[in-house]
């Protein structure tokens, strides 16, 4: 009898649990604050950020049925009002309550963006040589008899000036971090690179035999019997005997970017425009003449330009200056318009042999469209012209008397 009772109780429990389970998993879900959330979302979509924030805050703080997800609306409203610190705080509240990995990743990404946006408002980046005074620059131009070696996490720098070797090691780490983290969106580089700083152009060319005649720097990557050698060669002084600041500001990050791309692409082909465009982006300051030239040359014939750029090889580039300017402009356009994750996917797709248009469409997870290349060329043309016109306007404003 007691046994029967026990079985009846177990049966009742099982039936009850099944009913509850069915109620949870089988029936549609209901949210009591859905209407208020929708109201706040409408305000957000309409650009009424203050109102959206108020409405969403009311839902997060509702005493009976709080909806912590509404912190995402509060955060977005603040972010779109450019109140980044407050937005980051709201995203943190949302992160505490987020129960799905996608939402958590989103919150973390937005906190990072809010933090970097806030820093961007306050501190624009500066080229390394701009931080040095005249005396230091003069010191850096000195060439001693001895070769000094300085090492850091990734680099062994050799130069005939101990201060310069130290400075190059520091700036090389900064440049590598910028290339891997910002430009290539999280590329690893667990390798060691030798950097040789040669006193002048003559010794540079004598030792860096693979570098073109006109170059002030070069990189090499070679493998022999399982041993890989990564090397960058630089020039310390210009033709007048002064310290070549361009070496720190442009040549070092430029060549390093080539080296990292070589590592990333391995045996696959990295299109010339991408290789050079990214290397120019790695330079610590934007070369405005390139931006102006790209805008001037691209107008009206972007599609032909884009197709030619994407297929260009080192041996068939007819006007190198124009090609470099356009490559920079196009790569900078792609990098600026795609998210970091998308850009990284784009590089991976190119590395796997996709065409540029296919690689972009794949990284955007969109159905392939016949008109995409033309649309991309048009958008780039607009961008290149707008950038060029902006610089022209700035230059005109500087020359116009007040």
């Amino acid at each position, binding site marked *: 009898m007691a046994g029967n009772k026990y079985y009846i109780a177990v049966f009742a429990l099982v039936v009850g649990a099944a009913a509850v389970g069915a109620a949870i998993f089988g029936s549609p879900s209901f949210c009591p604050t*859905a209407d208020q959330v929708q109201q706040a979302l409408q305000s957000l979509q309409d650009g009424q950020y203050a109102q959206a924030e108020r409405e969403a805050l009311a839902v997060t703080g509702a005493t009976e049925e709080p909806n912590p997800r509404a912190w995402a609306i509060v955060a977005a409203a603040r972010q779109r009002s450019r109140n980044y610190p407050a937005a980051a705080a709201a995203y943190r509240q949302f992160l505490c309550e987020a129960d799905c990995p996608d939402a958590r*990743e989103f919150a973390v990404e937005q906190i990072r963006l809010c933090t970097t946006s806030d820093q961007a408002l306050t501190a624009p980046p500066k080229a390394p040589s701009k931080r040095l005074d005249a005396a230091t620059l003069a010191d850096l131009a000195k060439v001693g008899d001895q070769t000094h070696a300085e090492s850091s996490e990734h680099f062994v720098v050799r130069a005939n000036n101990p201060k310069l070797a130290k400075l190059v090691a520091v700036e090389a780490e900064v440049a590598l971090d910028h290339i891997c983290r910002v430009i290539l969106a999280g590329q690893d580089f667990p390798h060691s690179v030798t950097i040789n700083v040669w006193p002048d152009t003559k010794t540079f060319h004598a030792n860096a035999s693979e570098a073109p005649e006109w170059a002030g720097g070069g990189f090499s990557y070679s493998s022999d019997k399982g041993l890989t050698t990564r090397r960058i060669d630089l020039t310390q002084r210009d033709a007048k005997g002064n310290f070549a600041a361009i070496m720190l500001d442009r040549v070092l990050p430029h060549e390093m970017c080539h080296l990292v791309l070589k590592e990333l692409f391995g045996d696959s082909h990295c299109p010339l425009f991408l290789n050079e465009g990214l290397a120019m982006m790695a330079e610590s300051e934007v070369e405005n003449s390139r931006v102006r030239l790209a805008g001037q040359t691209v107008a009206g014939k972007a599609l032909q330009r884009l197709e030619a750029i994407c297929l260009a090889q080192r041996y068939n580039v007819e006007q190198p200056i124009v090609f470099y300017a356009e490559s920079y402009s196009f790569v900078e356009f792609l990098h600026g318009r795609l998210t970091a994750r998308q850009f990284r996917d784009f590089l991976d797709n190119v590395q796997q042999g996709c065409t540029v248009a296919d690689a972009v469409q794949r990284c955007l997870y969109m159905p392939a469209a016949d008109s995409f290349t033309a649309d991309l060329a048009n958008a780039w043309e607009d961008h290149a012209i707008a950038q060029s016109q902006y610089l022209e306007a700035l230059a005109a404003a500087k020359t116009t008397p007040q």
Partner: protein
Amino acid sequence: MVRAALSGCLIAALASVAAADKLVLTDGRVFVGTVSVEEDTVQISVPYGDLRFPKIDVERIEIMDTPEQEFRKKLADTALSDPNALYELAQWAAGKGLSRQAGDLSGLILKLKSDHVGAHKALGHIHTGKSWLGFDAAMEQARGKLEAGSYAVLLEEILPALKAAAPTRQQALQAMNLLADTQLRSGQFNRAEATFGELAEAARKAEPPAVDLATRSAMIAEILHANPDGMYILRDAYPPAAPLLGTARAHIMPGPASLATPLVLEAALRDEAKKEIEAGRKFLDEAQKLAATDPDSANLKYAQADQCFQRADAMIPDIARAHRVDIARRKIAAMRKDADADARDFDEQMAKLGVKDMAQQPYNTMLQRLIHHLDSTRDDLKRIIELAQAYPKELVLELKWAELDLTKIDNMRKILVTELDGRK
């Protein structure tokens, strides 16, 4: 005039009228069909065949009118200018399974009285506002109302009528889909979740199953279940190319947005499609590793990848097409390898031919072996063409090469067969 019109449309229907006789057997069994009496037997043609019984087993034969004959008699007695009398006859005809005649009568009634409710309903028309429309036209109008935001009239009047009047299962699914969309856009998230769930089930059970609709609807139901407040968080802007191309088309910024907005729902579906594509790409990578050593396992992985890509395409049409092309391209590359190996074997055998004198028998055997090699290569090329034809634009080179090679193989085969036949 009316009678003439009616006769025109009904005569064809009545032309093939056959007698419907009732055959009652002594054991009580009854059959209805066309009876013909022979010497000692009675034969009756029924829909499933002819039956023959001895005369002594037959109790009686009743000669009866078929429904069509009865309809003709009733029609002759009906006042053809009276819509209500015609409607009565149409209802009777529908009840007897004479749907074509009933439909013709309903059409005629509407010529006499264009607002005859019964005739409209009998024809499956739907009353929308002031007018009666056929199912497809009513669906079109309902879609317009959805875009215009007229959710109340859709939910209360039009959609229930559409659902009830849908003439086929596919159209019933369309009506259900529209109902679910309307509930979603009007912010009834829990109801929309339930309707999308039902739609997924109905699409799965349809004949033939509407697989893409089932996958898409089930996924929307899941998305709504995970976001009961109707808020979805977009990780990227949508449409995804908008920030890159700077298109004038409206787009949604990354961040929280309402699933009641169609673009946001599309974005949510795209996120799910992305997950399927990523899973498919993992299978592709695994397949690539296996392809050289274990082609069967590699093909299994390709099939799994293809399933993922098909699910992705069901959510966002053609989003995974490029990856499906990758599968075809890789399979073609593997087949090419086989075909090339066959071609090499063929060349080796060919090189031996003519080097030394051969007796007829070994020579014929060698020719047969060469033909066998060519057949094997031809099979590979045919499979390549079959695969590439699914993506003619993307795999144009693979297709052309295979076609050219196939022509060459066929020509070579002809020469060898002629040589072999000549020798025999």
